[in-house]
C-alpha cells in the first residue's frame, strides 16, 4: 500500500469467508453483484489462476452486452486473496483500459462477525492519489503536492 497511489476500502461483511469467496469465484454468483442494478452482468471468463482471464460484460437493457472488464489475474490464493489488473488484458496484451488502469487486490480474513474484506486499488497517477483525500483543497493540495514534489524531485 502506497498512500500516494492507492485507494483502500475495508469492510466487515456479515457472512462466512467461504460464502464471500464463492460469491467472487462462481460466475453465476459474481454476475449477481459485480455491476450496479438495473444493469446486468455476464461473466465471459473467470479463470481463477495467476495469468488467467477475467472478462465481464455489461448490459443496460438485458439484451445487448457491451465490454465491461477485460483483465488478468495476477494472484489467486484460495479463500484468502484475489489480485487482478486491467493494465494487461485477458490475452496478456498491454492495454489502455477505460476509465483507468489499475491493479486490484481483494483480501479476505476471518472476523468474529464474518469476513474482514479489504480492497486496495493501485493506480499509476501519483497526483491523483495525492489529491484524493483533500477535497477542500487549496492548502491540502499545496501540502501533498509539496510532499510529492520533494520526493520526486529529490529536493527540499
Amino acid at each position, binding site marked *: 500500500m502506497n498512500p500516494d497511489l492507492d*485507494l483502500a*476500502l475495508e*469492510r466487515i*461483511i*456479515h*457472512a462466512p469467508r467461504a*460464502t*464471500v469467496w464463492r*460469491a*467472487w469465484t462462481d460466475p453465476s*454468483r459474481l454476475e*449477481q*453483484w*459485480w455491476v*450496479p*442494478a438495473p444493469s446486468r452482468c455476464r461473466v465471459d471468463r473467470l479463470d481463477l489462476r495467476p495469468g488467467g482471464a477475467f472478462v465481464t460484460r455489461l448490459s443496460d437493457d438485458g439484451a445487448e452486452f457491451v465490454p465491461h472488464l477485460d483483465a488478468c489475474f495476477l494472484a489467486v490464493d484460495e479463500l484468502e486473496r484475489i489480485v487482478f489488473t486491467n493494465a494487461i488484458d485477458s490475452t496478456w496484451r498491454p492495454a489502455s483500459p*477505460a*476509465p*483507468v488502469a*489499475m491493479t*486490484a487486490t481483494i483480501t479476505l480474513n476471518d472476523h468474529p462477525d464474518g469476513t474482514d*474484506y479489504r*480492497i486496495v*486499488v493501485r*493506480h499509476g*497517477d501519483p*497526483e*491523483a*492519489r495525492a*489529491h*484524493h483525500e483533500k*477535497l477542500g*483543497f*487549496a*492548502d491540502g*493540495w*499545496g501540502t501533498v*503536492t*509539496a510532499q*510529492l*514534489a520533494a520526493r*520526486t*524531485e529529490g529536493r527540499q
Partner: protein
Amino acid sequence: MAQYPAQLDGVFVALADPTRRAVVRRLGHGPTSVGDLAREFPMTLPSFMKHVRTLESNGLIRTVKSGRVRTCVLNRERLTLVDDWLAEQRRIWNERTDRLEQFVTDPEENRQ
C-alpha cells in the same frame, strides 16, 4: 467523468511536470504575476513561459494582462476534475462491496 477524458488527460499531462506542479502550488496561495513566478524557478523566461502556456492550454490556470503585467490565476474548477475521477473510482468499489454484502447475506443465497 466519462464525458471528459480529453480534459482529464490534459490535466494529468500538465501536472506530470514538477515545475508546473510547483506553479500550481504557488498559485494556490493567490494570483501572482508571471515575472514574480519566473524568478522562483532556475530557468530562462522563455522556458518558464512554455510551462505557463501548458498550464493555461490545459485549463489549470488563467492569465490576465493588465498594462505590462501578466498575472496567473489558478483555475480550481479544473483541478476538481481529478477529484471527480478519483471519487468515481472509490464509489464503484464501495457500491460493489455494498452489493456483495447484500448478496452474501441474502437468506436465499445462504441456503445453497
